[in-house]
């Protein structure tokens, strides 16, 4: 019962959604929209589980005075702060001028923009370390990256200024993006398509059943 029912649900629902693609008739034509709505409602319910888990682990740290318990306390406090304000604010919580918006603009945005911008440093250090002509594959990668990078700044065209128009670094960069890059992407995409079909089929047939867990 605990194993069979989920397997059956997976199979029936999976096959229905495959069939849906070929049937324009109601109710099949509405299933995409329904599923999207259902999923977002389930997400909203499930985040309660996630949030409780985060709070529980943090609280255990604080109670046990484990190393870093102070930071765990900060997690709890900042979570409570924004949640209480956001829920009290009502469904217009996001309008300019609300306290929620203040927290969003002055804390959330600087934090995520900075974390995102860290990427600039990591891109540099990764290029420094990884783009080395270690072997034949790495050399190809290095050359392609180098030409595209230099083709995207004005300096690139200054260096190749002696060449006729259409044969400068920027043109080379565009050519690499348009042809060999597109070809590689396409091979990857076709492969992914086949992989997804095979994985979905295994899931629907119940051969791959990790998600339904143990019998108890």
């Amino acid at each position, binding site marked *: 019962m605990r194993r069979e029912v989920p397997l059956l649900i997976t199979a029936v629902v999976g096959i229905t959604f495959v069939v849906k693609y070929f049937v324009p008739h109601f109710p099949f034509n509405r299933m995409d929209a329904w599923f999207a709505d259902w999923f977002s409602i389930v997400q909203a319910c499930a985040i309660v589980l996630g949030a409780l888990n985060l709070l529980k682990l943090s609280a255990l740290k604080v109670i046990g005075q484990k190393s870093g318990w102070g930071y765990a306390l900060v997690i709890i406090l900042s979570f409570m702060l924004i949640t209480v304000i956001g829920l009290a604010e009502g469904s217009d919580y*996001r309008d300019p001028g609300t306290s929620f918006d203040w927290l969003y603009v002055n804390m959330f945005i600087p934090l*995520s923009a900075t974390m995102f911008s860290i990427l*600039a440093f990591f891109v*540099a*250090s990764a290029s*420094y370390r990884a783009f*080395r002509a270690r072997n034949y594959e790495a050399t190809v990668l290095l050359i392609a990256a180098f030409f595209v990078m230099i083709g995207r700044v004005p300096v690139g065209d200054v260096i190749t200024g002696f060449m006729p128009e259409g044969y400068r670094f920027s043109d080379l960069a565009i050519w690499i993006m348009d042809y060999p890059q597109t070809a590689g992407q396409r091979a990857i995409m076709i492969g992914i398509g086949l992989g997804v079909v095979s994985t979905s089929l295994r899931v629907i047939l119940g051969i791959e059943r990790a998600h339904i867990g143990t019998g108890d």
Partner: protein
Amino acid sequence: MTTRTKELIAVAAILVFALIFYIGRVSGWQATEFSTGTSIVVVVLLLASLLWMLALTIRGRLIGRRVVFLYVGVAVAMPLFMKLSQEMPVSLAVLGVYDAVMELQPGSKVLIACDYDPPTAPELQPMAETFIRLCFQRDLKIIIMGIWPQGPQQANLALEKILAEPEIAAKNLEYGIDYVNLGFQAGNEFVIQRMGGSFKSMFRTDYGGIPYDDLPLVRNVRNFSNIDYCFNLSSGFPGTVEWVQIAVDRYGVKLGAGNTAVQAPTVYPYLSAGQLTGLLGGMSGAAEFEIAADARGKGTKYMLSQSVSHIVVIAFVIIGNVAFIMSGRRSALKG
């Protein structure tokens, strides 16, 4: 002195430095700007130190990742102080926006649709500022709106900045008569579509809650047919693609656009098909627009930052390969 003491001293130094400059700012210090001479010296020093790094590598000393980080930080920060102007030609796509604005009669109504948020502001904010300034200089009326929640907020920041500039402040522009911010409206591309019928149905009040009909500038603006030019700043969906498909194709609006570098390639076809009068793409687009409007500002500076940081990344790729060859082509995976 232990490392810990050194670190504490460093943090204290940063704090003192910040306090001094913050107090300075509050008490009215002017912004720092390098002269051309200083700028050249800084760039030369940067390049020279990169060469030194190369030399160190050749002599067998590997550079750690923190050094790379430091260089990236410096390469981005220093050009922001510089006045050095990279000479670059203004492309036709950018001129398209500039010319369209210059052709408008004084008093024409321009709609600015701000569909972006703070993460993409480095690229799009300079465009917004230059565009707003150009409109005010030409005595055009500005109507701002957004279908991204934070777009109108970004526009307010730009407005605040431009209105404070002496040249514009001298015009004594008035809210509601010379410019209006209608704020954000949820509903993605359907907002554009309904605006084709009536602006008022989508924006009952402006950003600050003033009823639509109490704003003299827009009181008689019924829909797109009362708008002379439209400029869209976009960093994704919904954005320029939707504006072209609905406002241009269906309602015949004249549209120019500013896009992030990532998005610009998808919009390019509309430019060649004539559905866009012009396109500013990424930081280089912002910089070129500033050059065209003869108002070198952040876009030009940012572009310089971007070029210098690019050169630094390329330099480190070269240094990395030198290090690899020097180390006898052994696997330097974790170098």
